[in-house]
């Protein structure tokens, strides 16, 4: 097949859009921590981006998209991108572009996990953990769904990574928070966000980049991409308004709640974007806003210091999205019918795919975090935590 310039141009653009989401996560999280950890929080996302980019071309891509081994992981055929060419393949775009596009997804997943490390992680331990996590958690999960693994073969649908990116990172953040322990002083005095406008700006970058994330996952410049673009925006809008309304009902309509709801809507529509229409996306987004808001309140009530709510928003939002895809999928959009069109099997396949990924991500993350903690220690010392990670880890002040 000859190169399709439209598709190639769109995928190049979409890749760049998704890249912006990783620092977007950094700024979103950075505004939520205390000033003394602002640089640290943003830097973690950049460090993840740099590390995963290298890991991806060396062996990560091959583990995800190499020849199938037992439905679980890819082989090492594409080690160091061997055999990845510049000529357009069957899909009309060059294989190396697919590598780049998938690589930015791998990076943002690990960036989301930084929520569970916030304000207390030792940088060296974090870097070791990030390398292990992306290799042993993200890469297999990407293979299950997209690289010819078992989740795809049982028919579990994940259009753009609701399970691969969001369930995995959200539940991983929860596991990390349980191993690393609470921030010192958590629950004794309030730790308020130091810069909410920074978080709003991060949310803007996420919302913008998400068009590349979901519409790019059509892997073509066509009607399916346009549908994904549209439902992505509508679900985000519905999520924003739902969380805003819920927080208004309980007190003040907080801007932070509004953008958290937008992210919840974006997360939930991610697995569904190529399978549902605009009407369904309103329901998916609005329900996501409420579920994630409830999950956050539950987390606070339990006194869990999963500090920046990756679990509530990405983990639970992703779980809802996986179920919602099984419920709302419409044959007219992506060729698959969900529960509403009478196809129970689709719902079950999606639930199985999501829950298996959830358990795998949570358990393996627990083990990895525990091992890194035992080997070099995940936490900074009490004094370093007190003066903040910006000075103690980076020697800089925001």
């Amino acid at each position: 097949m000859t190169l399709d310039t439209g598709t190639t141009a769109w995928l190049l653009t979409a890749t760049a859009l998704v890249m912006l989401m990783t620092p977007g996560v950094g700024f979103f999280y950075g505004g939520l921590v205390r000033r003394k950890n602002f640089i640290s929080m943003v830097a973690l996302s950049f460090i993840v981006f740099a590390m995963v980019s290298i890991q991806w071309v060396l062996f990560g891509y091959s583990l995800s998209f190499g020849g199938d081994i037992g439905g679980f992981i890819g082989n090492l055929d594409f080690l160091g991108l061997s055999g990845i060419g510049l000529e357009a393949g069957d899909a009309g775009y060059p294989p190396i572009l697919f590598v780049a596009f998938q690589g930015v997804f791998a990076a943002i997943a690990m960036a989301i996990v930084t929520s569970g490390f916030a304000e207390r992680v030792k940088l060296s331990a974090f870097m070791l953990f990030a390398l292990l996590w992306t290799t042993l958690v993200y890469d297999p999960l990407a293979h299950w769904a997209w690289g010819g693994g078992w989740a795809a073969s049982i028919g579990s649908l994940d259009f753009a990574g609701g399970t691969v990116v969001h369930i995995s990172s959200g539940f991983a953040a929860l596991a990390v928070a349980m191993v690393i322990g609470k921030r010192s002083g958590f629950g004794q005095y309030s730790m308020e966000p130091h810069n909410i406008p920074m978080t709003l700006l991060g949310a803007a970058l996420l919302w913008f980049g998400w068009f590349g994330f979901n519409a790019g996952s059509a892997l073509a410049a066509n009607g399916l991409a346009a549908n994904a673009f549209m439902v992505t925006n509508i679900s985000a809008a519905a999520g924003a308004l739902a969380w805003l309304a819920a927080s208004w009902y309980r007190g003040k309509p907080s801007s932070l709640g509004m953008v958290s709801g937008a992210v919840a809507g974006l997360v939930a529509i991610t697995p569904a974007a190529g399978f549902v229409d605009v009407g369904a996306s309103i329901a998916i987004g609005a329900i996501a806003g409420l579920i994630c808001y409830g999950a956050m309140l539950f987390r606070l009530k339990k006194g869990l210091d999963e500090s920046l709510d990756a679990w509530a928003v990405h983990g639970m939002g992703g779980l809802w999205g996986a179920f919602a895809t099984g419920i709302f999928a419409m044959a007219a959009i992506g060729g698959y019918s969900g529960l509403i069109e009478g196809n129970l099997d689709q719902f079950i396949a999606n639930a199985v795919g999501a829950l298996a990924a959830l358990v795998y991500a949570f358990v393996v993350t627990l083990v990895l975090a525990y091992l890194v903690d035992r080997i070099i220690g995940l936490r900074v010392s009490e004094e370093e935590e007190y003066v903040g990670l910006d000075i103690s880890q980076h020697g800089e002040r925001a």
Partner: protein
Amino acid sequence: MKMVKAIFRPERLEFVKRALEDQGFYGMTVMAVEGRGDQKGISLQYRGGAIMVDLIPKVQIEVVVKDADTDRVIAAICDGARTGKIGDGRIFVLPVERSIKVRTGEQES
């Protein structure tokens, strides 16, 4: 009258405010400050050497009270601000000549 000027850990402010309220003292001025004490800040040890963080963020509050109330205010502040670790802060007591309410011109001395 006395001015009680206290410098302590920012995260203890809520506790100090509560302790003062319990004693019936509500008025205060709060400032974010940086400072260091006898230890000249905090030294962080690394394999490659040490980083000295010499100015640590603190809050400073000022409360003006009658002479007879001074000790109760000091006790309340200590109560709220103390963690027992190095860096809990300092309290200074200064004489105040007069206090004037801007709205009414009412004076106290």
